[in-house]
């Protein structure tokens, strides 16, 4: 385990370094508060710290205060070292955010025991964070496929659209539906239906880049968002993604199954600043057109025609088309 020690006095620092090294810690030693803070703020920096009270630049309590102002960061267990001993100073030290307090010269045995207390607290924190992350994952992911759920993928889509407007880039929204999925469920059972959905989810994720995202939009509907997607390549990429599902059979408990998907595709750049609900409606219309054209294909949402209309007429026009 990494531990930071900060002491401006070389002899004490070396003594401490060696004591902790012997106790099995990976020691990072610095000689002032500024460097201590720098180390503690590094990603994967030490989470245990022994800080001398009086140091040039930034003193021990100053480091504690600065570390505690950071939020959403792993907890750092900090022990102040000092030769000061008055009650007022102890209170001041602890109120600056230190977890513990040791008076110099300290006994090595006691130091090690107090650091073990720190390690217990950190372990507890790790477990809590892990539990929270699990909850967060469950709240934002579909249980069956582990894809983003509808709420989460919508949130991400809204953020992505804002970003693409800001950066004047295009986002491609793909809404896909598994063709004749109901037949799978009806003839082979829900267990096979679930197997199919899990496999399709996996193939869609593999077919996109790490900064794109895929969500389960509904029962057998999937929403794929391609961020910063060059409009010229979007249909080709969408087709590749679509084919990744149909190009080879899916292995199920009841044998291999070949399934196809239909997709509606919309490019954000061609639709201006419209609410996400409207864009999703348009892409849904395109998906419907793909289905009507015999399935196993994709249709691009028709932006050119829409842009010629006055915005006031749009919703009605859309309704008529459906």
């Amino acid at each position, binding site marked *: 385990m990494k531990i930071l020690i900060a*002491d*401006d*006095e*070389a*002899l*004490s620092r*070396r*003594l401490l370094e*060696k*004591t902790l090294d*012997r106790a099995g810690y990976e020691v990072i030693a610095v000689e002032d508060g500024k460097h201590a803070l720098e180390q503690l703020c590094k990603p994967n920096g030490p989470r245990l710290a022994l800080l*001398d009270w*009086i140091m040039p630049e930034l003193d021990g309590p100053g480091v504690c205060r600065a570390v505690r102002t950071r939020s959403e960061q792993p907890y750092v267990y900090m022990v102040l070292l000092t*030769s000061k001993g008055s009650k007022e100073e102890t209170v001041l030290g602890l109120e600056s955010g230190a977890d513990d307090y040791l008076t*110099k*010269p300290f*006994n*090595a045995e006691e130091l090690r025991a107090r650091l073990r207390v720190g390690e217990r607290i950190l372990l507890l924190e790790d477990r809590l964070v892990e539990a929270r992350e699990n909850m967060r994952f469950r709240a934002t992911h579909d249980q069956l496929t582990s894809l983003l759920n509808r709420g989460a993928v919508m949130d991400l889509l809204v953020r992505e659209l804002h970003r693409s407007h800001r950066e004047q880039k295009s986002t491609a929204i793909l809404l896909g539906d598994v063709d004749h999925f109901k037949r799978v469920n009806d003839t082979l059972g829900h267990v096979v239906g679930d197997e199919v959905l899990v496999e399709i989810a996996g193939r869609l994720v593999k077919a996109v880049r790490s900064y794109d995202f895929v969500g389960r939009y509904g029962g057998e509907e999937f929403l794929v968002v391609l961020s910063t997607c060059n409009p010229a390549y979007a249909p080709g990429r969408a087709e590749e993604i679509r084919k990744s599902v149909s190009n080879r059979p899916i292995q199920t408990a009841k044998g291999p199954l070949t399934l196809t998907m239909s997709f509606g595709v919309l490019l954000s750049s061609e639709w201006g600043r419209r609410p996400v609900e409207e864009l999703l409606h348009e892409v849904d219309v395109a998906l419907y057109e793909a289905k009507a054209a015999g399935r196993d294909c994709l249709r691009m949402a028709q932006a050119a025609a829409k842009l010629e209309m006055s915005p006031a007429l749009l919703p009605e026009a859309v309704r008529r088309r459906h």
Partner: protein
Amino acid sequence: MNKNEEDLSQPVWNVAELLERIDNDQVLLRELLNIFKEDFPQSFRSLQAAVTAEDLKSSSRLSHTLKGMLSSLGATRAASAAAKLEALSSAGETAPMGRALSALESEADSLLPELDAYMAEVRR
């Protein structure tokens, strides 16, 4: 070791206590002595200058550093002398500081030969 100081119950240098703290690591002990021999004279000279100039902020900081260094080394008596100087600096009592500085110096004068003797002993 027969200095006429108030805290005569304490040895000038408690090497046994230090060795216990460092698990009898002779290599580390030598390293610590080298750090001390390098850092102490310099810090002490700065402290002298600060006391002479009645620069309380510096004398407080420097005597604090020396106190830490000396107590880490197990030089309990000299550490107490540095602590006294630190207390005077913090309290702004300039009048007795000269005497406190001399007391620290005389502790250091007894300490340094002991350290040298130990180094020579070990080397033999």
